């Protein structure tokens, strides 16, 4: 019985470590019940509740970060979760994109064929909770559970339009997702068999993996990676992305294109760092460097031919997965910092682009890219904001996209200088070459808006959406501020002790 008492004590002591997540988790039943009994389908109230809940969550995150005082946790729940600088930074980014999501959802007049707003927010909270748990997991079991939480919510999200197209894309997504989950689970069980532990940070885990012959170890790890790469939309696990993007409402897509991707990236990074500390003959850097290059090329080349803004952004997000991987593969502190900074910039610019696309969506339904012809005349401010977003996505100065991309490729260069791995050099050259390719499609919407004469009826922004132009201006200004003065971002990261995940216990 002493064991049980110990476990109970451990759990009680650990609850302090998951307060922000608890708030999110409590909001789910609250909103569900409130929808049924109190505020029946009143969007306004749910928005207030969401904003309030997110504000409370971010306050607790600040406490956790030490910005608002309070004790810091590292490990909790007997090694199930672990809060370090990386987890904190990404949790803050997730909550930030949560705020932006709520604002963006206000722009949409009718987000899909939902029964009520509450369902829409519950899916969102599910993804958010899953992602937050994911970046904190130190046990493979926890990784799996949180990935499944994200996945199940995402499956629902992808079919919520309830038309033929979204059901098709949803089914595709569920099938792909189920297979990749199965692979991942199989890989986890193999690793458990090899090592006898699921805690990836424990010394035991590493010692035992070293003893496993390379091929079985490679297979088991590759299976786990495939599940993560699926979440990150890295080639060859990217095929679901454009269909899901096309079928789902814009606000959820904006959120969905960032949060699960970053969460997957964090776990990928943790495992990747772990593996590279092992002696062994598997060239993980080369394997994933190659995948990153392929991902950039396929994402950017496929985006060239898209005529639907959402599909184009889907391929753009695939390409950006490739860019983000560069920072992880570089295996240095600069790489990690630039991943965090690029993640922040990517979040802001992606939301900016989706916000403007949503504001510009005509009542009859989403417009294809050629339909944007001549809109600059009617909505010059929005066109300029969209241009800022796209320039930043391309990675040209004077935008934050340039700064973060320069840092990402700097880390690759640094890694090449230190380690002489040829793949890093190719990553730099081919990765930057991709900038040139991506320019072509990122400029297409501005091109139609500004260069072409109007071919159809002028666009009219509904008056209730005008207020959100201010949000767009704020995001665009943020992108430019990151270029002009990025110091504070790095200082913030440093204050969170954002360093290598080291192995303890």
């Amino acid at each position: 019985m002493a064991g049980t008492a110990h476990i109970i004590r451990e759990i009680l002591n650990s609850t302090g470590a998951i307060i922000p997540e608890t708030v999110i988790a409590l909001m789910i039943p609250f909103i569900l019940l409130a929808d049924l009994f109190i505020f029946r389908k009143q969007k306004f109230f749910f928005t207030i509740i969401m904003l309030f809940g997110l504000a409370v969550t971010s306050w607790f995150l600040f406490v956790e970060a030490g910005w608002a005082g309070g004790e810091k946790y590292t490990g909790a729940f007997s090694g199930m979760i672990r809060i370090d600088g990386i987890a904190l930074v990404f949790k803050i980014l997730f909550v930030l994109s949560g705020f932006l999501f709520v604002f963006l959802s206000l722009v949409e007049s009718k987000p899909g064929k939902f029964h009520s707003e509450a369902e829409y927010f519950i899916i969102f909270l599910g993804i958010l909770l899953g992602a937050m748990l994911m970046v904190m997991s130190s046990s493979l079991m926890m990784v799996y559970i949180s990935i499944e939480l994200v996945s199940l919510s995402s499956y629902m999200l992808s079919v919520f339009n309830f038309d033929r197209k979204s059901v098709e894309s949803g089914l595709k997504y569920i099938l792909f997702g189920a297979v990749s989950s199965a692979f991942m689970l199989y890989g986890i069980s193999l690793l458990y068999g090899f090592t006898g532990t699921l805690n990836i940070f424990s010394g035991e885990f590493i010692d035992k993996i070293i003893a496993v012959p390379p091929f079985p170890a490679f297979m088991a790890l590759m299976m786990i990676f495939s599940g993560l790469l699926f979440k990150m939309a890295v080639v060859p696990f990217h095929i679901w992305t454009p269909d899901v993007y096309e079928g789902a409402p814009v606000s959820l897509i904006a959120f969905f294109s960032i949060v699960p991707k970053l969460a997957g990236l964090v776990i990928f990074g943790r495992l990747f760092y772990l593996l590279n500390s092992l002696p062994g003959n598997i060239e993980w850097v080369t394997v994933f460097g190659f995948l990153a290059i392929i991902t950039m090329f396929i994402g950017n080349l496929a985006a060239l031919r898209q005529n639907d803004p959402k599909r184009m952004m889907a391929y753009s997000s695939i390409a950006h997965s490739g860019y983000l991987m560069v920072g992880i593969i570089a295996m240095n502190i600069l790489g990690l910092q630039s991943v965090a900074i690029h993640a922040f910039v990517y979040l802001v610019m992606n939301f900016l682009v989706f916000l403007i696309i949503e504001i510009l969506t005509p009542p009859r339904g989403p417009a294809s890219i050629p339909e944007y012809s001549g809109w600059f005349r009617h909505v010059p401010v929005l066109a300029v904001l969209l241009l800022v977003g796209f320039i930043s996505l391309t990675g040209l100065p004077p935008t934050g996209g340039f700064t973060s991309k320069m840092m990402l490729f700097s880390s690759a260069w640094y890694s090449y200088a230190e380690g002489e791995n040829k793949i890093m050099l190719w990553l730099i050259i081919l990765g930057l070459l991709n900038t040139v390719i991506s320019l072509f499609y990122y400029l297409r919407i501005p091109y139609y808006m500004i260069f072409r004469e109007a071919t159809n009826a002028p666009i009219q922004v509904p008056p209730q959406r005008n207020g959100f132009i201010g949000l767009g201006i704020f995001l665009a200004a943020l992108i430019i501020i990151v270029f002009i003065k990025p110091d504070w971002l790095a200082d913030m990261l440093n204050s969170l002790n954002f360093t290598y995940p080291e192995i303890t216990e």
Partner: protein
Amino acid sequence: MILTLIVFIPLVFMVIVLLVPQRGDKTYHMLAIVSSGLQLLLTAAGLFQFKSGPGSPPGINSETAFQLVEKASWIRIDLGGFGILKIDYFMGLDGISMPLVLMSAVVIFIASVSSWTVDRKTKGYFALFLLLSSSVMGCFMALDFFLFYLFFEFMLLPMYFLIGIWGGPRREYASIKFFLYTLLGSVLVLVVMIGLYISTYDPVDTGIKAGLITGNKNVAEETLAGIRDKVETGEIGPDNIVRTFNIITMMEASNYLPDSVLNVGNSRRILGVSPRLLAFLFLLIGFAIKLPSVPFHTWLPDAHVEAPTPISVILAGVLLKIGGYGIIRLGYGIFPEGGLHFSMLIAGLGVVSIIYGAFNAMAMKDLKKLIAYSSVSHMGFVFLGLAAFTVESIHGAVFQMVSHGILSAMLFLIAGVIYDRTHDRLIENYSGLANKLPQYTAVVVVAFFASLGLPGLSGFIGELFVFLGSFNSESVNNLVPRWLPVVATSGILIGAGYFLWTLQRMFFGKFWTREPEWEMKLADLNLREKSMFIPLIMITFVMGLFPSLVTKLMESSVAAMVNDLYHTGLKNLETITGLYNN
């Protein structure tokens, strides 16, 4: 303060243009002229303060020898274990950049006068025009690589829109081609920039960060040597290293971190080549696209033909010079051994551009396309002069850039005059224009003769210096064999051929135009056009008759280049080849 004002005055005016409501009158036109007029005045004031002549501070590779310097801390990113990333707002002029800045100020002013006839979407046009004029000026002044790159990239976007919205019939194709080509060039420059700042550190700031010294004023050589030793031995750890984008710091071999990829003493090879030579090659291609040199020139005729006249003027007059300037300041400045190692390649590209550009120009039916190819041909002299790397040839290369800036502005204005009247630029559609348009013909004669290198006009001086220098090269430094300049002289003959032939076809003989009603439209130069041509013609004559006015500005800098950079280059080349032979 002057340099900051020159760069930022157009931005202030841009904001004013954006705020003033559209009224359909000439307010924006006036604002642009005032802005570029102020820029010109300030540049003249800068020239007044600029010390030139023998014994004046040369600049090039010594931070204290730059003039009108402005330096302020801008970005310092603390990257934990990676050290600190330092970006400064650092601008200054030396003998290479001063003449180019002067020339740009003149050309931009002329272009703003030439923009008077723009009547479509004027607000956007002038906002972008002012943005462009700010960034091209900044490009010549920046001494921090990040700042340079910012200006270098920043002119692409306004240019893209200026060609794409106000251009000719195939403007969309031309503008995206221009953007993609030049972006490809800047990506190559970006790769080198990343490599450079990771490889270099600022010893003074590193010392301050490590707590060895307290201020950056008057740091003794021994203290610096001590800091360098400590970095060498690893006593100053990576988290105290201050990495810098300062171009001047990058020119000094002792500022490279031990074992960094671009350190001269590093024996690493990339694809079998020394990283430093490869980096030079990247810069060379990056800037050759901009210059443009054959075979990277194909964007230029398209962009020129479609661009509106004032934008063609800036494109040919100023933007192309940034390619030449970049290869001098960054390519030769940071990797002088690359310039020596690849001298045959550079000279070869130059000569091929001269001849190929001239032959193409001869075949062109469109007057503007002819002028565009003549630009390719004339910019070839810049590469030939740089490759030979003698005192005369570098004088010639820089002089040629300045002279071509003025001449190409004139030539594109000439093409604009005829296009404004008839909306047709085909050479074969006109004949005997001299009878009808005597003043215009006089201007054309001066511009054409100056371009084909008639003594007494500016084009002659640049080409003469380049030839003198490159003929000498074989005996002075053995970089360029004598036959190359000999071959290049044929370019001058072809140049004379196409200019004179055009003159004969279009202007001499009996007056005739394809469409009879054009005769009514063909009026001689008006006051505004004369006010653009007369100063340019005067500058051409002054530069041709008194070249020392321009060469005086650059002589000490060129001397420093030929002495210091040449010897650094030789030393580095020896080190590199020594490493590979062992």
